[in-house]
């Protein structure tokens, strides 16, 4: 067990899988010579050579299209979209090709593809570079979507994603690459369809994934100082969406806050809330509170940006309000 930053945990997962399976290869912009924009692929070009670590042109549709073709031909590509913002030009490939091909060919072909890409805002990069799109992908049958919030999960989920025979959207976050945590050495697999309680509590349930998991954990720690016991459920498995720990938790706490970095409307929290209304309505003591980015294109202005994206204070104030302590 070593303490690794998120980027190094991901790097370890890639290295281990590339060593384990010769059909695994990487492609993306600046992932080779430059070691990746966020240094996730550091050293891999040197180690595995140009045939397995491909620097591509700045052409996202071609990157995904190439990866899909390779996957259909028996390889296991891991494509990097430098950020999720750039995947929009490749959405036809992601949805119409990657997600649907296996079904349209009656199972005659499969697409064992991983698309790694970071989302997230809060870095003053403007509206076009601050997106969180996991809900778009999680809407599409045929895709699996995961979004880890800890280095250990990042490693375990990436290894599982590479071994999965379906296209997996592996959503990272620009704000978590330096996040450090203990990561099991060697073979460490985290299932793609299991969410889990990351912090047990009694009075209120907080659901969050990716960077918002950290925000939720911070908020829960602060709330504990005020005598409010919050349970944090990591929603790392977004599609298929594992609701089991959420339902169990809501049955215990009767109150739910969902936190996501993307917009609230039609968001991850909306889906979680609907499932809770369907499966645990009679256990709710208050309406489900959804926290998400303000419904505006992300502001560049630093102060505006700061209030537009969810932070610890939002979770804390919402938790107090739900408990009638405001």
């Amino acid at each position, binding site marked *: 067990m070593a303490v690794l930053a998120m980027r190094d945990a991901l790097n370890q997962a890639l290295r281990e899988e590339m060593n384990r399976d010769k059909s695994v290869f990487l492609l993306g912009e600046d992932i080779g010579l430059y070691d990746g924009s966020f240094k996730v692929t550091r050293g891999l070009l040197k180690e595995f050579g140009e045939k397995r670590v491909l620097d591509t042109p700045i052409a996202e549709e071609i990157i995904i299209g190439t990866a899909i073709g390779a996957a259909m031909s028996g390889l296991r590509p891991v494509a990097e979209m430098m950020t999720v913002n750039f995947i929009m030009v490749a959405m036809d490939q992601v949805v119409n090709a990657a997600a649907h091909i296996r079904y349209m060919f009656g199972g005659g072909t499969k697409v064992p593809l991983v698309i790694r890409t970071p989302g997230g805002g809060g870095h003053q990069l403007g509206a076009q570079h601050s997106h969180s799109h996991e809900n778009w992908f999680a809407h599409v049958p045929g895709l699996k979507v995961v979004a880890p919030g800890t280095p250990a999960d990042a490693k375990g989920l990436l290894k599982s994603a590479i071994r999965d025979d379906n296209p997996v959207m592996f959503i990272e976050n620009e704000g978590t690459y330096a996040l450090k*945590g203990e990561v099991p050495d060697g073979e460490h697999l985290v299932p793609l369809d299991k969410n889990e309680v990351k912090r047990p509590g009694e009075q209120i349930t907080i659901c969050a994934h990716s960077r918002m998991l950290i925000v939720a954990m911070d908020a829960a720690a602060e709330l504990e100082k005020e005598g409010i016991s919050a349970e944090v459920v990591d929603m790392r498995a977004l599609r298929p969406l594992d609701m089991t720990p959420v339902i169990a938790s809501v049955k215990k706490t009767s109150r739910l806050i969902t936190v996501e970095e993307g917009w609230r409307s039609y968001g991850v929290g909306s889906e979680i809330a609907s499932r809770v209304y369907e499966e645990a309505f009679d256990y709710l*003591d208050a309406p489900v509170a959804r926290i998400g980015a303000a419904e505006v294109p992300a502001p560049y202005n630093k102060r505006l940006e700061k209030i537009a994206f969810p932070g610890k204070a939002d979770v804390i104030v*919402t938790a107090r309000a739900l408990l009638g302590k405001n």
Partner: protein
Amino acid sequence: MADVQMPRLSDSMETGKILRWLKKEGEDVKKGDPLVEIESDKANIEVEAYASGKLSKIVVAEGESAPIGAVIAQIGDGASTPSTPNAAPQGQAPAAAEAPKAQASAPVAQGDQAVAATAQVAADAGGEQYPHGGPDDRTEVGAAAQAALNVIRRPTEQEDGERQRVSPVARRLAEEQGVDLSRIQGTGPGGRITKEDVESAAQRPAAPTPTLPRERGREIERQPTARPTGEVEVVELTKLQSTVAMRLVQSKFSAPHFYVTSEIAMDDAVRLRQMFNEAVDKPESISINDLIVKAVALALTKFPEINASWADGHIERKPDINIGIAVGLADRLIVPVLRNTDQKSLKEISTESKQLIERARTNKAAAQDYVGNTFTISNLGMYDVDQFTAIINPPDSAILAVGSIEDKAVVKDGLVVPGKRMRVTLSVDHRVFYGVTAAEFLQEVKRLLQSPMALVL
């Protein structure tokens, strides 16, 4: 004297490692000269001096690391002795304008982001330090939570006496534990009754509640409760209570009331009810009150002068017969209204009034459940009451107060025999009709209840 601080070279950087000092201690440096080579988490970057002077002290040696903001060297004018530098506390990054300019920068996160150093946060139960992009140091609630808070804090839109806000889990618990929601004051946002409210209500002994029209013999037990100590306890009225108080005063002191009492033999009505209930399933069973409601409604068809209101110096006779049923709850008095009562069968009256009363009890009643009454019945029969007089419920011109059915020794054909007797008292607005009408009306009600087959036809 200027401090050289560890610059922030990427948005995800926490610490930087000094690879090489490009100037020696004591050497002169000019603003813009390459000063030091630093390894960030992303790249090796040459950092320029941003002040001119003598490099008076190198604080962090080659090969060592320091967090963002820590003093790594000092540039002096050569005159003063360098002070002992203190490492800047975490989270205090050089302000944007003062930050050393990085020559290289990451493609996405530009070097000069004016964001403070990566926050160190305890992120899990184990207390592990989890840094992440940008400090999460906002203490006021942001736009991100505002929409959720608006929902949580939305004030109750309904007035008292209308639909009560109850959370789903509170409703379920109340049902399971037999807690009467109408006697709970919600403490949740907007006055919503929460799980906790129900749980604490379940601990308290049940207050004497609904004066539901039922038969005599209801066991009432009032627990001794704590009296206010020392000072007088002021009980504020709910909006509904104020309204009721105002209307009662208005009625009692504007309508000249007179009262007519009659005793009715209920033997046949009781027997009819018994037979009826033996023939139907329990949910369809009828009450004595249902029989009284039906009898009154039928009687009113013959007395349009009673189904009327006093209104500004004239009398308004009403086309419909709508009977209000007074329901007393712990903290309020409400009168749900059965519409077109004369046209309804006994079974319909029974079902509908059960629904109305249940809705009233659980605060689910709609506003129209409470309006349109033309005559009201107040029944305290289940509380072992011989007889009482009621205040007219505006805009009615009369109200019938119903006492308990008592087993009495009665004289029949010269013999003393057991009989079931019930006393009813009609309160009348003397402006609308007079004593003879009142007496005739009571006779008709009496006739219907004493020969009750007409009620089931």
